[in-house]
């Protein structure tokens, strides 16, 4: 039973298009399995539709429609441009990954500390997004940590808990910079999460920050 969902603000930013690609894909994974959040996003998208409908129009350039029709002619002649997408490399991480990650590259598990492994997730259209899979062994306590931006964590397998509650499969934990937490993975089994941090930190800085608590703790 899902208990933790993205905030309305996050769903609103998802719908309006202002959520960064990293958090966006984590929220997309959650929404793929949560009809309540999907419905909420539809409502917020309808806000976008209503705003579009009601906005004071701006005159388009001369012959804008003619130019577009000319492009349509060219496109239908050539049968449309087929977007060439190279298939990203996907390591087997031992679980069936949600559909929302279908186009993403998945790196192999790498050890970053006792009982903790991570795998780099690459979004093809935004290689700089900070997204990762985290695998933490049963009963493992993570040292207390904070982050500078909001951290989005979607539980894919297993569960963890901290002072705010227990997070199981399908739950999304949205932890902003004010939250200090010390998550503990339940004894029943390992926990695999998809996580993204907001903010365009340099890769080294980002993983450094993530790795640091595990190694230093």
């Amino acid at each position, binding site marked *: 039973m899902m208990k933790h969902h993205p905030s*309305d*603000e996050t769903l*609103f930013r998802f719908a*309006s*298009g*202002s959520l960064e*690609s990293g958090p966006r894909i984590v929220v*997309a994974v959650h*929404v*793929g399995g949560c*009809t309540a959040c*999907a*419905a909420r*996003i*539809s*409502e917020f*998208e*309808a*806000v*976008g*539709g*209503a*705003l*579009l*409908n009601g*906005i*004071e*129009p*701006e*005159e*388009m*350039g*001369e*012959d*804008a*429609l003619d*130019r*577009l*029709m000319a*492009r*349509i002619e060219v*496109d239908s002649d050539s049968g*449309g*441009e087929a*977007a060439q*997408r190279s298939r990203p490399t996907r390591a087997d991480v031992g679980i069936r990954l949600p559909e929302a990650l279908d186009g993403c590259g998945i790196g192999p598990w790498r050890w970053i500390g006792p009982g903790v492994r991570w795998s780099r997730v690459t979004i*093809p*259209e*935004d*290689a*700089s997004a900070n997204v990762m899979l985290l695998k933490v062994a049963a009963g493992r306590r993570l040292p207390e940590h904070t982050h500078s931006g909001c951290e989005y964590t979607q539980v894919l397998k297993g569960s963890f808990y901290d002072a705010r509650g227990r997070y199981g499969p399908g739950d999304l934990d949205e932890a902003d910079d004010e939250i200090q937490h010390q998550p503990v993975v339940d004894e029943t089994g390992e926990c695999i999460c998809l996580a993204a941090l907001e903010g365009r930190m340099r890769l080294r800085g980002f993983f450094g920050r993530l790795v640091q608590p595990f190694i230093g703790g």
Partner: protein
Amino acid sequence: MTMRADEGTLSPEEAIRLISAVAKGRDRAAFAALFGFYAPRLKAFMMRSGMTASAAEDVAQETMLLVWKKASYFDPRRAGVSTWIFTIARNVRIDRLRRESRPATVARAFDPSDEVDGPVSGEAAVMTAEREERVRSAIALLSSEQAQILRLSFFGDKPQSEIAGELGIPLGTVKSRVRLALGRLRLILDDLK
């Protein structure tokens, strides 16, 4: 010939009829009518979210091109026409911003599978029309101040600091007002169900 900026109004039902005509018959007159209504509004929408007039016009053109190409994917059970076109424009804009910030990344063609799939049932089209109507009513029921903050934060990337400047209120106040406005919107929406 200069396009008339305001093509008046377009009812949700008429918009659906026009999209189906484009989807089924590749009807250019129907497409021109959609273009006349939506392109100037898309341009205005993008300008409001901080784009220059020429970039905004590009996004409007790109979006309308996709409306032509993807008309057969339009599903009235999932969204109204304005909402569907908004989501296409939103994705065009996201791709554009990504390209601008990282010129090396590959452009992505619009893919309808990107869209979040909601539950679809036989009554879904009616439910969708009701939802869109509910959202319109809900926005109308917000205080003008709340409607304004919602509008400002909806128009994309405008940083909250800029919104704060525009409204002459502190940044923290913008955050809490957005939260309040969304809370109120949620209450109204759930109430109207």
